[in-house]
Each structure stands twice: as C-alpha cells, then as structure tokens.
C-alpha cells in the first residue's frame, strides 16, 4: 500500500456560523497531482491555508510527511511551498532580489545557481532586474511559481497558479509543472477554475461543495459519475446546486 505524503482526516473549519470546510478527509500520494475543484466558497483555498498552517483548523488531523502539522510545522514547511495568484512578491524589490529573500528564508545552498535555474525555467531571466511592481500579471505569476520551487519542495500547494497567465505562458507553465512533478516525484495540491486545465493536470480530483467532498476520483471517473461530457459541465451542475 502506498504511503501518503499528506493525510487529512476529518478536517473542519468553522468561521462564526459558516462551516467553510466540513469533515473533509483525503490523502495526497508521492508524485501525484490532486485537483481541488468547486465553486467559489467551496472551501478550496481554506484547505490550502490550513495545510500551510496559516489558518488553524476547528478540528481534524493533518499529517504531512508523517508529521503532525500542529506540532511539527517548522520542520514540515522546509519541504513545502505554495503559490497563489492572490499573493504577491515584495513589490519594491527586483525579481532577483525577491528570489534571493526567499532563498535565504528557506536556507538554500548555492542560491545564485538555483535562482538562475528558476529564472531560465520560467523565462524571466531577461526581467531579473525589473521591480516586481512593474511586472505584468503574467510575469508576476511566473515569479510566484519560481518562488514556489525555490526550496525544491516535496509538496506544492498551487492556488489558481495560472489564473492571470496568457494561454501560451499558461500552457508552458503546465508543461513545466508536469515535468518538474515527473522528475522530482513532487506531490501537488492544485486548484483552478479552468476545468480543462484540471482535467489535463490532475491525476485525481476532489470536488468540493459548501465545504464538503461530493465526489472524488480520477477526472474521467467523476465526469462519468455525474453523467456529463467533461469537468466543465460537472462544475456547472454543482455550481448551480443541482446536486442533491
């Protein structure tokens, strides 16, 4: 039996009267991309924030690399990273300076070499001396992704990482993420509103609705279960609350 790198059991997060995440359990296995889908407010981002230790769960147990997140967060985050299209890099620094800051925070050896690799991989080497505030949203997203890989994470949480990228860069980013995942056996928790992207990227998906898991499995299995042609249609069905 495969051992999971992330194991979530009975995760619940309540904000006042809102049950943002309701008794959610799932695992992520080595080298797997797990897609989290659901309409706005389904609880996707809250789950990522809880897994990063930025929000305390109301109840539930989270183990990452077999360690209890509640007790061993400092050890865990050394091998974890994240990128969100809603979180920026320091805007008064240059691209390279920003990456240097995070390379130091994650205590990376051979910083210069690592940064150069990432700048080239995400095609931002030519703008390395540009201030972050002067970057286009697409360039900022690529910088965020470069930051997310600065520590060669074993687990990566990506919250709508391609949200503001043009189709060309989005495609390149997906290709790059897939190749990184393959080369390094990295585990990824991925959210996106682009259903085509989710079908393409995810080995497995979890469909969330009002904080609860309503479907789980390989994308094709979930599509079949809902009797639809693709994930887009499944999403629309769920979002319009046709689900009982």
């Amino acid at each position, binding site marked *: 039996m495969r051992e999971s790198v992330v194991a979530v059991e009975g995760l619940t997060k309540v*904000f006042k009267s809102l049950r943002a995440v309701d008794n959610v359990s799932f695992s992520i296995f080595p080298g797997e991309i797990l897609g989290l889908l659901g309409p706005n407010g389904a609880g996707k981002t809250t789950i990522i924030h809880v897994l990063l230790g930025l929000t*305390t769960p109301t109840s539930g147990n989270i183990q990452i690399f077999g360690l209890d997140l509640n007790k061993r967060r400092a050890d865990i*985050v050394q091998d974890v990273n994240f990128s969100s299209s809603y*979180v*920026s*890099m320091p805007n008064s620094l240059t691209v390279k300076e920003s990456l240097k800051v*995070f390379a130091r*925070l*994650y205590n990376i050896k051979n910083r210069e070499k690592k940064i150069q690799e990432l700048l080239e991989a995400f095609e931002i080497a030519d703008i390395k001396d540009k201030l972050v505030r002067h970057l286009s949203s697409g360039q900022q997203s690529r910088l965020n992704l470069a930051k997310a890989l600065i520590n060669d994470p074993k687990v990566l949480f990506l919250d709508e990482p391609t949200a503001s990228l043009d189709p060309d860069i989005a495609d390149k980013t997906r290709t790059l993420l897939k190749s990184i995942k393959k080369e390094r056996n990295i585990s990824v928790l991925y959210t996106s509103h682009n259903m085509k992207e989710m079908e393409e990227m995810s080995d497995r998906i979890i469909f969330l609705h009002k904080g609860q898991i309503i479907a789980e499995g390989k994308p094709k299995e979930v599509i079949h279960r809902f009797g639809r042609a693709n994930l887009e249609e499944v999403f629309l069905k769920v979002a319009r609350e046709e689900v009982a």
Partner: protein
Amino acid sequence: MRHIYLYRRSLPRLMEVVYWPLLDLLVWGFITVYLAQYRENLPGFVTFFIGALILWDILFRSHQGISVSFLEDVWAKNLLNLFASPLSYTEYIFSLMLVSVVKLVTVATIMAVLAWILYSFNIFLIGISLIPFVLNLIVMGWAIGIITTALILRFGQEAEVLAWALGFLFMPVSAVFYPVSVLPLFLKTLARFVPASHVFEGMRGVLSSGVFPLEELLWSSGLNAVYILAAFLFFRWNFVVVKRKGLLVRIGE
C-alpha cells in the same frame, strides 16, 4: 453619506477624528503652562526642546520601524509568502526590530547633524548617559510597534492609522517637552508608568544639574522590560487568534 457609514462602522477611523486635536491640545497646552512659569530662562529651552525633539523622534522611528515595515509587507500582499515559509513570527518580529534600528540610526544621525548645523546644538552634550536612555526609547518604540502590528493583524487595514498614531498616544505623558510636574495628578501617576517619561525627566536632570539620574534609568529600564514582554505576549496571543479566525490570510491577500 458614504463617509458617515464608514465612520459609524469603524472605531479606528472614529478615533482618528478626535485623536490629533486632543493630542495637540494636551502637548502644546502643557508646554504653554511650562513656559509661562519660566519666562526669564527661555534660552535654556532651546537645548531642552531640540534634544527632546531628537530623542522623541528616536522613539517614534523605532515604533514606525516595526509597524510601517510590517505594513509594507501587507501592502505588497507578501505576508502569506512570509508566514508560509519557515520564518516564525518571533523571527519576523526580530527582523523588524533590526530594520527599525537601521532606520532610526539614520534618522537620528541626520537630526543630530541638522541640529548642530542649524542651532549649534550638540546632542552629545548630554554625555555618555544619553546611550542607556536612547536604548530605553528604542525598546519602548519596539513595544509600541509590536502592539500596533498585532492590532493591525487583528483589525485589518482599517487599523493601519495606528502605525503612526499609537506612539503619539504616549506623548502627553512622556514629559517630552515639559516636566511631569506640570501634569495634573492623574496624568502624573500615569506618567510614572511610562518608560519615556523617565528618559525625558532624566535628560532634563542631566542638562540642569549634570548628575546622572540613575533612579530614572532604573525605572525606565524596569518598565521597558515589562512593556516589551507584554508586547511579545500580546502579539503571540493575537497571532493565535488571527490564525483561528482566518484573519491572517485575509490581511495577507
């Protein structure tokens, strides 16, 4: 009408309306009372005033070095990246303290040089005793900065005004430009528990008598130990609360 709705719902904004006029009234009012008592000795005030101004700015910059640096991370929407990294909140606070030291050394140097050029005032006339007093002002500024940061984390961007304002709350009872003796009794009592009041009283003591005010220094240091510990505990407690309420991610996005 939009502003009426806004102010009705926001305590920090409401505070701002009365805050500055009240402080101005207190600070300059007491200065007037003090000046009225010692009209014939006015030249001596230049030394007091300029020295006090520089020292107050050290406290204020120390406070801002923490609170405004934190705000810069909030404005840059970079806070989540930081707190998702191995950086602990304690390390984060210590790094802000370090930033504040750099900022205030720069500001204090500029002010000291300007005071010397413009008024022929040498801040170092106060002597070696200046060093422990300055350190106490820095620590008090840190304590205020840490509390401000905790409040911004808790109440969000509408509490940003505190990054500039909270330090000034201590000004009327810090005896910056006038001695504690001109304050009414209840403020006099309050001033005894403000580290900065002992620093400024001590500075006046050095300038007028030349005697090192050890008692004021001990009071100031003791109170600061309590202030900084309380500030850290308040931040830690608040950090737990904001993570539980999901506020950290809201301010960070």
